[in-house]
């Protein structure tokens, strides 16, 4: 599926309509493309260039600046072990070595079954739960060697499918409405249809929860500490 499929083409057009200049939609659209194919294909980038009126070299030249974009296939799960200062102080390099042994690849490598790509990551902003690991940028904190193994097992068995979508999926929530101010014509395609919005809102504005299969990701239920725990633990207990 090298070019954007019809659904993603519509998403791209909806994104273009959100900005005063179409090119501002480039990075959001590249995320859509990466969600579709797991990495950025040449044909896909040519298609994006056509949509935005850019040379394909401008698209690739921009994309190549950003670490999250991949131009070759990567595993279904991109496992990023943070080794920056806060995690290093809590043993992140031992964890990275364990991860290399467990997965049998060095950072940058992909396992033979195409499931895992390992990365040696920069600070992921979960330093209260160091060392931390992300899988497709979903957070797992306080990861020791046992928890890492458990995480890998859970990913293999599909137990974390609800929390960790395949590589490339950035946000599972799309914008529900187009711009309301200023007419915003260029490239506009009218009101975009809400696509897979996880949080439904009833007509009266009341909050409505969503179908269980699309349950709002309350973060990993994996035993490793969820990301937001870092904040919870950080409160002054019984604030003085």
């Amino acid at each position, binding site marked *: 599926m090298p070019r954007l499929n019809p659904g993603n083409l519509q998403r791209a057009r909806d994104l273009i309509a*959100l900005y*005063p*200049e179409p*090119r*501002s*939609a480039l*990075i*959001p659209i*590249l*995320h859509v493309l990466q969600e579709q194919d797991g990495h950025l294909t040449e044909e896909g980038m040519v298609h994006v260039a056509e949509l*935005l009126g850019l040379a394909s070299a401008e698209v690739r030249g*921009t994309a190549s*600046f*950003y*670490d*999250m*974009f991949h131009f070759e296939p990567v595993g279904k799960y991109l496992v990023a072990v943070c080794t*920056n*200062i*806060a995690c*290093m*102080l809590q043993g992140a*390099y031992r964890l990275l*070595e364990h991860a290399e042994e467990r997965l049998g690849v060095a950072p940058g490598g992909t396992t033979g079954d195409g499931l895992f790509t390992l990365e040696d990551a*920069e*600070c992921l*902003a979960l*330093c*209260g739960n*160091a060392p931390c690991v*992300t899988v497709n*940028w*979903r957070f797992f904190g306080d990861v020791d060697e046992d928890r890492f193994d458990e995480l890998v097992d859970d990913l293999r068995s599909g137990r974390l499918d609800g929390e960790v979508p395949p590589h490339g999926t*950035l*946000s599972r929530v799309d*914008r*529900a*409405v187009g711009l*309301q*101010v200023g007419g*915003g014509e260029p490239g506009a395609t009218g009101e975009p249809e809400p696509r897979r919005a*996880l*949080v439904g809102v009833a007509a009266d*504005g*009341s*909050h409505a929860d969503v179908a269980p299969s699309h349950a*709002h*990701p309350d*973060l990993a239920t994996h035993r490793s500490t969820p*990301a*937001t725990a*870092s*904040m*919870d*633990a*950080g*409160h*002054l*207990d019984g604030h*003085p």
Partner: protein
Amino acid sequence: MTITDAPRIVSRRLGKPRSWTLESYLADGGYQAVRAALAMTPEQIHDWVNTANILGRGGAGFEAGRKWGMLRPAQPVYLTVNGDESEPATFKDHALIEGDPHQIIEGSLICAYAIGAAQVFLFVRGEFPLGIERLQSALNEAYAYGAVGDDIFGSGFSIDVVVHPGAGAYICGEETALLESLEGKRGYPRIKPPYFPAAIGLYGAPTIVNNVETMANLPWIMLHGGDEYAKLGEGRSKGTKLIALSGHVKRPGNYELEWAKCTFRDLIFDPRLGGGIRDDNELKVMIPGGASSPWLGPEHLDTALSNEAIAAAGSMAGSGSIIPMDHTTCVVRAAWRIVRFFHRESCGQCTPCREGGGWLEKILERIESGQGRESDLDLLMDVCDNISPGVAWPPAQTTICVLGPSMPPAVAAGIRMFRDEYLDHIRQGRCPFPPDRLPRRLVHA
């Protein structure tokens, strides 16, 4: 100095069940502040923010109200909220985005009204997909509730807000690089002058770029008044500050504290806060304001946590992330890791940063792996001097932005404070610290 009972302004809702939903936000009085703001004039709001004297919470500590006052009188004006948090060991905005996205939206609406913005962009670090999902969900809810979009709450004020994801580049936290990225380009910082996007920003239009935590303070200021806010803190450091504490403490985490009232000692050792150094080890050194700040030794434990006091001690409050390191820490390895980060994240435009970073990383790697020479210490300082002439603080720069000058502090501090430890590495031909915490790859390099 003491830990005061100041209100928690930005973090009070974090940790509550489903704190990110509209239902929860409204139950806590959400969107009352923007209603109050819309009943005021933009000038009154600006006055209150000036009275509150809120310093930008991204790291540079520039007065938000003063920044707003620098807008070039032209249309359109844009507001861009910087949620690209990537400074090593800083994890406060991450918590705010995931835990209380409506507060950020409400603060942004207040700012947008005050500065007369045509559109708001919430730029969120790409590596925060949960944060992006929660912020987008919150925004969808806010539109449906009438808090965003056309004729907000019947006030006649209309504004659109767009959540914009980044794609992995530390440099996009620099405001001009952020704007380039938002324009769909490589995240290259812009040449200064013009110094402020308030003059020439997004698409060349006057633009305010404010940090997420700065926005999160605005609803409280609207509900309680700028003067109430200014009663908290001391001097220029008003209000509260969300401090991200990591490293070798027993209780790492985000702590919102009244600014200028407690000290590093309170933060690190108080049982309600850091709880002391792990294993009751000795404190060796602290990084007080993000990886780019000069290190401070234990003799600065009684320095107040305020913009001015930390500056007077020779460093900076920066992003508010504090990393205490215990006596088992190898300072060469710590400096190597920080330099490696900046080198990896250099955008490559300026030679001193692009090349100097690589030199520093390789020389430190050589010393750490036992291959160093005594002349390497001078060589390190020489490279630092090429990136930041004088290796002083605040740093001079030979580069477009301050990423390059962020490298020397960790190196220079290590050499100045722990020269013998550097020399031990060189004379013993190995790192003197236990191998169990070594990156093996580095030792055998």
